[in-house]
């Protein structure tokens, strides 16, 4: 080596920089490992859905969606939830399954589940909060905005904050707030 590479290890800045490189590599290693474990545990494919991705429903899911819509219209909320969950077992990325789950939970006054499922639906299908889309939920003044406003007020109450897992729900409330504020996605 004849001291050829000595200049890479001379000053405190060199040493600190190599330390930073090692730390970054170690963090990456840990992230890869935990990510791999998470994927293995959940059984989900690691790639997220693309915003605006064009997806095709299988005939089975399409039929279930039709049934779910019908049940919701008939105000049979327990059955709507059952069918929507069945849909999700066939396709975990079906946004309308989450939407009908959210609507059914909202009708049953289950605010936490309603919010979580609205949030999942919008993550998978941003058209739900896009004015230019046919699926825009804002057309019905009763649907999303007043529900999120209600959730924000509720989230400040002790009753909500004493529940286990409230932080997770709070994240979904904040997400919905940001999505409804507009801007980039």
């Amino acid at each position, binding site marked *: 080596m004849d001291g050829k590479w000595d*200049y*890479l290890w001379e*000053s405190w*800045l*060199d040493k600190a*920089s*190599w330390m*930073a*490189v090692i730390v*970054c*590599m170690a*963090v*990456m290693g840990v*992230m*890869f490992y935990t*990510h791999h474990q998470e994927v293995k545990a959940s059984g989900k494919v*690691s*790639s*997220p859905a*693309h*915003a*605006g991705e*064009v997806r095709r429903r299988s005939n089975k899911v399409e039929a279930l969606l039709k049934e779910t819509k019908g049940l919701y219209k008939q105000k049979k909320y327990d059955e709507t939830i059952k069918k929507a969950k069945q849909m999700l077992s066939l396709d975990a990325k079906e946004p309308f399954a989450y939407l009908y789950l959210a609507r059914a939970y909202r009708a049953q006054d289950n605010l936490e589940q309603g919010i979580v499922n609205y949030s999942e639906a919008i*993550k998978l299908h*941003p*058209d739900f909060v*896009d004015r*230019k*889309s046919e699926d825009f939920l804002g057309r019905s003044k009763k649907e999303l905005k007043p529900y999120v406003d209600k959730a924000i007020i509720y989230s400040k109450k002790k009753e909500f904050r004493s529940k286990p897992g409230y932080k997770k729900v709070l*994240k979904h409330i*904040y*997400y919905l*707030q*940001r*999505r*409804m*504020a*507009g*801007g*980039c*996605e």
Partner: protein
Amino acid sequence: MKHFIKKTFESIPGLNWSIILSGIAFGVLGVMLVQWGNPKNTGVCVSCFLEGISGSIGLHSNNRMMYIRPEIIGFVLGAFLLAFVTKDFRSVGGSSPMTRFLLGFFTIVGSAVFMGCPIKLLFRLSAGDLTGLAALLGLVAGVWVGILFMREGFYLGDEAPMNKMNAWIIPLLMVLFLIFVVVTPFFITESTRGPGAVYAPLWIALTVGLVLGALTQRSRFCIVGSLRNYLLANDKSLMVGIVLMIVFAIITSIATGQFHMGMNDQPGSHLSHEWSFMGMFLTGFASVLLGGCPYRQLILAGEGNVDSGVATLGMIVAAGVVHSWYLASSTAGPTFNGKIAVLVGIVFCFVLSLTNRE
């Protein structure tokens, strides 16, 4: 008032009217672009706009981010026209082109993880978005680390005069993009939904781009450059422009009803502060090594700087890749791939800084 202005000019060497005008124009016009139709808090954002261009020309498939933003065309052509008239247009380059391509690439990766370039960061802060604070700290930290290496002799090599045609390529590419926006041939895609479908009218966006491009070509306006000059040489001249930009952006935001202070319901933001910090750290670090922020690279490319042209091409490629490889963050937060890409970028910048010293 005259006395105050004279005193200010005397106390800040290097300060001139073009810097003052650039800061004011950027602050006012940037916020007004939102009023005229651009997405909220995104009056000007080089990374977001390049993502739109990349999508439109087919470099990624996110059909909600496809639109050739006339502002980008305006920045480059505004700088080009003024440089040409004032004889500042010079074809120079040849200083580590491949390295600059990758540095340009990583500035956009960092920006995509934060959800905005350094200019958008300031616009977000000016609109009251406090999620930008972590990113601002990250940007300053990244610039500071880059400066440490500059003090230790970091150098990408001399630039030399080049064949004139090299300097014309990026301005001509922008002319081509302008033709694409006007004619919209079949292979150019425009979003019908999402942020790509939210834009100011073509002629307004183009005019604003031309004005800002020309002004900032004169003033050498640059977010990262102003921080670098201040931290490295205590030169406050460019910083005055940045401060004016922020002040006028806040005033315009309040006047147009866009100012809303807080963290939770800010448009186009996420609450992953640590990754906002890391993303902007990468952008700041890579930008210092490049010699300017993504916006400055566009202006320099317009002036005929071939090295910045190569960095611009790296930025355009990155703008496509951040969507194709799921690196870009969304309001739900950063992705796993995005976090890994930021760490890879930081490692790259450190190794580059360690091995390129004189």
